[in-house]
């Protein structure tokens, strides 16, 4: 199977008040195949989000090697990372992070705007995506007029805008009740099965983790367990 992500000996330190260095990730190794659906679990503060941000090239590791679909991230310029986030990766956050005072439709169009897509194509694609997440009837609504589950569905549609091959979801159901969370999970399964997306899911829920193909357990910035399901 083709490798999508290859991370070797990833370290991340924060410099709270220089020179006080605080290492959060202590040399993580992870290889993810194309089309894999895996989950990362672990206690709060174990470094899951920090790791995810590095995987999503929102942040650079302090040390280590990272190859994303053939691109050596260490050597890539900042604007190249912007392009990777724009076209290769779709983010789904626990707090949705929809742009305020901006309609669902416009939120979904945003990544396409940065990709330089034509206006007509943007509109067409955004409508199509909102239809997939069953939000067509709310596309003119602003975020403050939507429920948590609805917001997260819009956020997933937005993450899918430029048809990325990787979806990174950081506790996407963390703020939702189990019934709504179930609906969101179903969308991920659908994207995985029907479109072959590579999906990495951070979750607190053992049941949801059980639904994925591989479970990585993080503790104090180290991988302490890895279980492949079949």
């Amino acid at each position, binding site marked *: 199977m083709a490798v999508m992500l290859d991370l070797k000996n990833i370290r991340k330190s924060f410099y709270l008040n220089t020179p006080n260095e605080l290492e959060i990730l202590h040399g993580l190794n992870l290889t993810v195949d194309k089309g894999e659906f895996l989950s990362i679990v672990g206690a709060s503060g174990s470094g899951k989000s920090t790791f995810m*941000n590095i995987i*999503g090239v*929102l*942040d650079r590791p302090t040390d280590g090697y990272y190859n994303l679909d053939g691109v050596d991230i260490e050597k890539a310029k*900042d*604007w190249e990372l*912007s*392009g990777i*986030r*724009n*076209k290769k990766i779709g*983010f789904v*956050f626990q707090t949705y*992070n*929809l*742009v*305020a*005072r901006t309609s669902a439709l416009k939120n979904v169009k*945003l*990544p396409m*705007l*940065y*990709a*330089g897509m034509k*206006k007509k194509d943007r509109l067409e694609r955004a409508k199509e995506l909102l239809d997939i997440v069953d939000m067509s009837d709310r596309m003119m609504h602003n975020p403050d007029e939507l429920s948590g589950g609805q917001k997260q569905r819009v956020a997933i549609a*937005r993450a899918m805008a*430029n048809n990325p091959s990787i979806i990174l979801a950081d506790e996407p159901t963390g703020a939702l009740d189990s019934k709504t969370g179930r609906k969101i999970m179903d969308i991920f399964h659908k994207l995985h099965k029907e479109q072959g997306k590579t999906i990495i899911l951070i979750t607190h829920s053992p049941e949801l983790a059980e639904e994925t193909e591989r479970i990585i357990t993080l503790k104090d910035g180290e991988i302490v367990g890895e279980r492949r399901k079949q």
Partner: protein
Amino acid sequence: MLIGENILLALSGLKSNKMRAFLTMLGIIIGIASVIAIMTVGNSLNTSVTSSMQEMGANNLTVGLKQKSYSEEVTESGMRFGAGFRKSMTSDDYITDEMLSAYKEEYPDNIDAISISESIGSGTAEDGNLSANVNIVGVNIGYLSINELTLLSGRSLTDRDQEEGRKVVLVSEKLVKNLFDGDNYNALESAINININGKYYTYTIVGVYEYEENSMFTSESDEDVTTDVYLPLKTAKEQNHSEEGYTQFTIVTTTDTDNETFMEQTKYFFNVYYAKNENYEVNVTSMESMLESMTEMLSTISIAISIIAGISLLVGGIGVMNIMLVSITERTREIGTRKALGATNASIRLQFITESVVICLVGGFIGIVLGIILGSAAVTILGYDASASVQSIIFSVVFSMLIGVTFGYYPANKAAKMNPIEALRYE
């Protein structure tokens, strides 16, 4: 393409926070409005004054007596010429007919005509319950030719009228309209009684001239309008019991005369007579030089107001910068989100610079409209025709954009350089 989206984004931002947007723009609005207002006033005054002065003869020289003084600057401008100079004038001080004849003989090629006038006063011409406002002005033949009066009926004043000091006058068509029901022929050879502060003067009308609207005073109605009644200079002098001689006269120079040089020559010529006079000397001014000093005065006022406007714009720009910094802090998470979605630093920078330029441009447009309204109102109150200055409008638009870019750059750059993770974690 991204710019278009950014403009829409900025406008919807302004719309959703109107009060804050307005307060932010206030400095820009006041600054631009005052620039536009003063430019409108300056432009209108310049246009009207230039045209009306040209009407009055920009190439005329005015020769007058002024008090010998050691504080030259009082008379330097030409505008305050003659202030209070009558107080100790004696018969020895006047410019005499002999001087004028000698002057004419000396420069026959330069002098086209010499115009002299002497006012008797202002009052009302009365006939039963009809009346008309008038100025009685004694004039010489030169005066009439310079002012190019168009006779509608009757005759002009002649040399004989002048020599004999006849009590004959030229009146305006407006006066005829008010006193004779507009019948010019009926007015001719009629007597006219003019009341000046209770004292009556009676003349015979020999001609009616066409009234030309003076653009400097247009606010009076036909009934209230004050027109000139012209009578021979000699008659006026006799009625005033004034001395032989003049305090002021106007020279029309020939077309191939260099006025600048001729002004100096004229001044020199007359001051030979006044070398021994202890109190008076002769000063020569031209409409041109008066126009110059007027323009100079206007531009001084313009500069002063422009400085105030500049300070206001600077404060306005700092206000815009301040509100942009606030806005960027408030929208830190949005910036983080946009970066996560693939926005480059450059596109974030562009977004916020566009926003700041849009704020300044909207403020600028409001300022331009407000400035034109205020400027036009001021000009209209002063009694001139308003005309906005196109350059100042273009300048204002460009300047607003410049403020937007200048004061928007720092906040926009700050937003662009935000670390995406820190921006997303911002609470």
